[in-house]
């Protein structure tokens, strides 16, 4: 095989390792962010929950109408928007998928990014996450059953796959009809222009059975919960990917150096100092790493776009900071991987040049 082909082969091998690491790192990033995405889009300075509840996902909070009225009467509160959440099952014939249903007043606290259809949900209608739609083969106009209640899909939303927990949006009335009660789960609290978040929060905390906290605090609590639970296996998988990346980089860099051992022997025989030989080897490793990283980044983006387009049930977000962070870590990993080849070069005998 020609030198050029071998080099491209090496770049491709490093690229595949980088793709693996970047994609999984992107999935971890997405999982971390997507679980709190709803809370980051509610646009309210405060939320209220049942006393003792400090999570949004996988939690059960109950706020009866008098409790919300009491919150509404607190000085500085402009309005309270009731949100109903239900952990349920949505089905399309034989296939059923667990979902988090969010019941919200029309135009408030609903889906923030519509992929197709409309978010103007009325009774008997539902907006489902696009990943869920792909899983169930749904499209705008499809009929589904949510906890035994027939609904029609009016829109597909984006960004509402909370690390595999699909969000569905219905009106508050539909949600309350499903639960069979008029209670809400959470309340979004909007304040008067001059009101202080801290002061109003403290005043709400004074109401028995009710707790006020910012959406950010609720999101942090959810983030910690997700980190401590189902994000851990993914992070372990990410570490495994880094180890695989290290192994691939080590093999590629070592074989690449061994292939060029005679060239290094020539350079040594001509009179290059050992330091120059090491620098040359490191330079080659750096070029291979950079080119492999660019290829891997392109492949990871392609893979991410492929998932996003064809199967948006698992997504990878690769912001610049994550790419940079991964590049630095992989650079260090590859630096580690250059130790065996450099040790090999140290032993290369310049007399090799006299061998036919």
């Amino acid at each position, binding site marked *: 095989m020609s030198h050029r082909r071998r080099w491209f082969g090496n770049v491709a091998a490093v690229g595949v390792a980088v793709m693996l690491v970047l994609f999984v790192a992107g999935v971890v990033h997405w999982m971390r962010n997507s679980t709190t995405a709803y809370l980051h889009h509610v646009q309210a300075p405060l939320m209220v929950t049942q006393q003792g509840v400090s999570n949004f996902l996988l939690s059960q909070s109950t706020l009866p109408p008098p409790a919300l009225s009491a919150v509404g009467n607190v000085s500085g509160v402009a309005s309270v928007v009731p949100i109903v959440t239900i952990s349920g099952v949505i089905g399309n014939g034989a296939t059923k998928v667990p979902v988090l249903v969010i019941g919200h007043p029309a135009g408030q606290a609903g889906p923030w990014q519509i992929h197709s259809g409309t978010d103007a949900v009325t009774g008997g209608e539902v907006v489902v996450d696009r990943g869920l739609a792909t899983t169930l083969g749904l499209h705008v106009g499809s009929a589904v059953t949510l906890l035994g209640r027939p609904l029609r899909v009016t829109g597909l939303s984006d960004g509402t796959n909370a690390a595999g927990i699909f969000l569905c949006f219905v009106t508050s009335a539909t949600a309350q009809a499903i639960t069979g009660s008029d209670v809400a789960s959470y309340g979004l609290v909007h304040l008067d222009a001059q009101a202080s978040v801290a002061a109003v929060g403290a005043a709400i905390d004074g109401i028995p059975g009710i707790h006020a906290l910012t959406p950010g605090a609720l999101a942090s609590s959810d983030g910690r919960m997700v980190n401590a639970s189902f994000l851990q296996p993914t992070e372990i998988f990410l570490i495994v990917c880094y180890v695989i990346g290290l192994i691939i980089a080590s093999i590629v860099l070592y074989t690449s150096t061994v292939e060029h051992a005679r*060239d290094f022997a020539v350079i040594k*025989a001509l009179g290059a100092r050992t330091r120059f030989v090491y620098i040359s080897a490191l330079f080659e490793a750096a070029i291979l790493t950079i080119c492999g990283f660019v290829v891997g980044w392109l492949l990871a983006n392609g893979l991410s776009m492929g998932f996003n387009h064809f199967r948006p049930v698992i997504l990878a977000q690769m912001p610049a900071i994550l790419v940079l962070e991964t590049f630095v870590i992989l650079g260090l990993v590859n630096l580690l991987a250059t130790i065996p080849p450099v040790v090999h070069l140290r032993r290369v005998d310049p007399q090799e040049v006299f061998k036919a």
Partner: protein
Amino acid sequence: MSTLVGEGLTKTYGSGHTAVTAVADFDIALEAGEVVVLLGPSGSGKTTLISLLAGLLRPTAGTVRLNGEVFRADDPRAPTLRLRHVGFAFQTFNLLPTLSVLDNVALPLRLGGERRKPARRTAAQWLDAVGLDNRSTNYPRHLSGGEQQRVSLARALVGQPDIVLADEPTASLDTRTGAEITDLLTELTRQNHQACLIVTHDSRLADAADRLIHMNDGRQADPVASG
């Protein structure tokens, strides 16, 4: 003063019963502008001797002097001295496949710290001298064996070394090309007043020599006895 002198050079590999002496008490002196052919069969110790003279191998006994100075393989200055004073031509050319012909020739200058542009300019002059000025952008794989050896000669001479050590420079070439390469090597080294040692098993190269040294079993041999 001789350019390169080897006095009592001995190299023994191993020890005790398994010890093998590749070069034994060998004396050699090379003068500027002189072409010396070291002739010997395979296994006679020629490659070990050239490694000792090039400062690539430490002798078990004896000394190498380069321009009057002791030249030791374990001296930290050895690579620099080799780079400045010794040029190499090899049997298998040893051109770097990833570098163009021009950059291969410029390599010793670049290793010596010269900047890319002037190094390439000098390299181009030497490529012209060996008749390959039109192949500078090619890579070694694009060249014939004879052309690769010409590039190797240009690389050996580009740094204006005091001595050129050529190890079996015609062994990988056909007779006619081998003769051309020998003529070119001897002509250029004489022209530049450089000492040239050609190590070979091919007795036809004897004609090119100002002085012929026979080697057998690691020692200087009687020309008649060594055949």
